[in-house]
């Protein structure tokens, strides 16, 4: 089976020009070299806290940002967005903020028609038919088509966002925090819809979120990011139930769970490392209870830690 998406040594450094004429160029390494593969039909979850490079990674995958290093392969071919129409048919992106991703001055119909016109050059009758089909599959009423984005609630707007991504009939959809702006009771509706659509259209998902429980519930495998690097990859049911990297464990312990007493899982004064002045060695070492001298000098790489699980740690947790 070919993989839908393959990333090798992908990295992004944002240059910050300092000095009068931009001489002293400093860089923020938003995404450090990372490699992973997503087989067709899989949902790969990506979790991490703010500033860990989740969105930068997503924007590189859909060609909205140019990677500094590394390659992205989509269905066996290198990412090539020279022809926007061909590229848009392969991969689509679903945005975090459902309302701001819809142009406030356009009707839903105009928004829905854009991908059909640009990517598939469909005629009017054909477009109308296709939009009806898509609206049907995401449970939206056809009379919404004449309305403007501000008339919709977050849940409805997010469903319109799903509909737009589907209109492109892509192979892969990158979902960037698709439910974090929604209420809990509506969030489950959208997640279940996404799951149904995936099997209906045989899609591959990359599901990015900061909500561990949501990612776990929808993903096959999960990638944990910290400070721009992959610290752990593994099966969804394993990663949080049986974390090997101390950071993953910290995340899992921090999530509020009914019935667990309230304790701060780490020292109260810890802060994230400064991206402009990254520490040498493992970025998590300063917060890590297991850190040794070696962690502060060398950068650990991903290594198998049993089964399909990989962790970037010199002293991984054992079960």
């Amino acid at each position, binding site marked *: 089976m070919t993989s839908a998406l393959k990333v090798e040594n992908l990295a992004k450094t944002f240059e910050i020009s300092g000095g009068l004429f931009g001489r002293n160029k400093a860089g923020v390494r938003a995404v450090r070299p990372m490699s992973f593969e997503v087989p067709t039909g899989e949902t790969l979850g990506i979790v991490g806290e703010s500033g860990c490079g989740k969105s930068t990674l997503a924007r590189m995958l859909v060609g909205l940002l140019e990677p500094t290093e590394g390659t992205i392969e989509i269905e066996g071919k290198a990412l090539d967005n020279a022809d926007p129409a061909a590229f848009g048919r392969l991969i689509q992106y679903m945005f975090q903020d459902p309302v701001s991703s819809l142009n406030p001055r356009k009707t839903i119909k105009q928004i829905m028609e854009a991908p059909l016109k640009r990517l598939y050059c469909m005629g009017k009758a054909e477009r109308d038919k296709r939009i009806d089909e898509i609206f049907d599959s995401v449970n939206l009423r056809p009379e919404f088509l004449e309305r403007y984005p501000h008339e919709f609630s977050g849940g409805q707007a997010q469903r319109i966002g799903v509909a737009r991504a589907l209109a492109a009939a892509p192979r892969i959809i990158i979902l960037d925090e698709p439910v974090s702006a929604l209420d809990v009771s509506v969030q489950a509706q959208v997640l279940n819809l996404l799951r149904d659509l995936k099997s209906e259209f045989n899609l591959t998902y990359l599901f990015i979120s900061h909500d561990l*429980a949501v990612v776990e519930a929808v993903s*096959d495998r999960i990638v944990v990011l910290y400070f721009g690097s992959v610290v752990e990859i593994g099966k969804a049911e394993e990663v949080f139930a049986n974390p090997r990297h101390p950071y993953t464990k910290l995340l899992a312990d921090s999530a509020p769970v*009914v019935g667990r007493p309230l304790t701060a899982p780490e020292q109260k004064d810890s802060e994230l490392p400064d991206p402009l002045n990254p520490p040498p060695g493992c970025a998590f070492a300063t917060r890590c209870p297991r850190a040794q001298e070696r962690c502060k000098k060398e950068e650990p790489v991903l290594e198998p830690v049993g089964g399909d699980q990989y962790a970037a740690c010199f002293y991984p947790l054992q079960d």
Partner: protein
Amino acid sequence: MTFLKLLFRNRLAAMGAVVLGLILLLVLAIPVLPLQDPDVTNTGNRFVPPFSEGHLLGTDHLGRDLLSRLLYGTRLSLGVGIFAALIAATIGSAVGIIAGYFGGRTDNIIMRGIDMLMAFPYILLALAIVAALGPGLLNALIAVAAVNIPFFARNIRGITVGLAGREFIDAARLAGMGHTRIILTELLPNVLSTIVIAMSTTVGWMILETAGLSFLGLGSQPPQADLGSMLGEARSALITDPHTSIVPGVMIFLIVMSINLLGDGVRDALDPRLRSGALSRPRAQTIVDRKSPVPADDGNGLLNIQNLETQFHVGKRIYRAVNDVSLFVNPGECLGVIGESGSGKSVTALSVMGLVASPPGVVTGGAVRYEGEDLLSANFESLRQKRGDKVAYIFQDPLSTLHPLYRVGDQLMEAIQVHHKVSDKDARAKAVELLKSVRIPNAESRIRNYPHEMSGGMRQRVGIAMALANDPDVIIADEPTTALDVTVQAQILALLDDLRRERGLAIIFITHDFGVVAQLCDRVAVLYGGKIVEEGTTTDILDHPAHPYTKRLMACVPELGGGKRELAAIPGLPPIVSDLPPGCAFAPRCEKATEACKEGAIPLEGSETRAVRCIHPEEEIA
């Protein structure tokens, strides 16, 4: 048309519109008016005073009819002004959109060019352009348009930069649109209103500038009349025959005045920020207009909210945000208030200290008692004394509640000194102590930080420190950890828990997260559609939810450790509080709903510690 209504609500703008309308009407009627030829000279009839036979406004130094010259001149000046504004707007906006959309080097080069254009005093620049092209009305028009291009370019670039980073532009790119199409179909419609606003405020200027050039003899050439050249020709007779100057002068004044008034009105009516009421500053205290008698003190709790009703009156619509909510909290206790967006949880919290923005917010019933005293009937001074001192708030987003221009230490000191006469030195010491008490490392140096220099978790600690500044008895925390990462959230929750145990604080904790409630709160109230649907101790509610909404909402929340699975969902959407159903607000989404649920109001039944508002509860409550 809301736009016209808004426009004419502004009296000055309406006056401007009327004056400008009259002038336009006169000018447009020139072909049918019985006017004399404006350019025919009759030197025998020089300087005829106004209101003479045959010359209503008199004649000028060559005996030409002033009324006729005035109307023709006005038409020309208006035409030139509007045309110049159109040219400047088109070129300037195009430059601005291109610079803003492409950004980076393109932006840099274009905007530095614009800056150079702006570095010249504009009248000098206009003079230089006319000098290069030669005098003439067309060249004056070009000069006036050229010097106004930077104004449009900078304005529109600013707006475009903001829009170009928005997600719908990315979405258009992924839909396969090219740059030209994105600019024309996605960006342009969104900046059009700004262009119109900028134009309406500059047309007046342009007319004035063209008149200035004509006055200097660089614009319209004799015998052609425009307002500037009429003034220029009348200059020599200013003392002897002032009417020749006054007539065009008054017209320029009327035109520019009316256009500016109307332009300001258009701007206010079109600007979405002003339209949404940013200019109508809310009062310092929520309006209280109780329709029902104030409930008697029942002696519950330290802070006791009794049958509170808060509404928003927007136009003719009434949003019933909070309906008959009763809550109380004891010292050392943490009360959780759970609800989705629009359930009225934040409005309940803000009503306590009269912080709901008024207008449009109105408290229409109930009482809020602090140690038995009704805060809703308290005067503003006594309420202000208690804000922050007795009852303090922690809000969701610390970045927007801390002032970005002051150091966090100064903000903390201010919070202390508002309520207590303390010297700067003592206040500073207290501020350091507060930062230490919320476990901020290096408090002595952190006190000199600006809010943007801190991480989200640190800022929220400052927010908590500020709430603690005056040793309040009650803290109302409105989603204080929602914007934070999980690891930081865990720290903040542990901190709040320690603080209430150490200091005996009463906390009202507003959230949508059951996990947080379970860990921190003693009792919980669940809000839906502005009403409490269920309340009880945390264990009772979490283990034996009685209201179908509570039960199903809890099922929607995925719990960590369950692996991949289907999630429970509640079909439908939360109700809109301007249009609440007569019966149970949850009935349209509820599987157990019967006709009786939809008919009348359903009472909250049970004891003081455990109650549910449902006629088909999931479990009988004790």
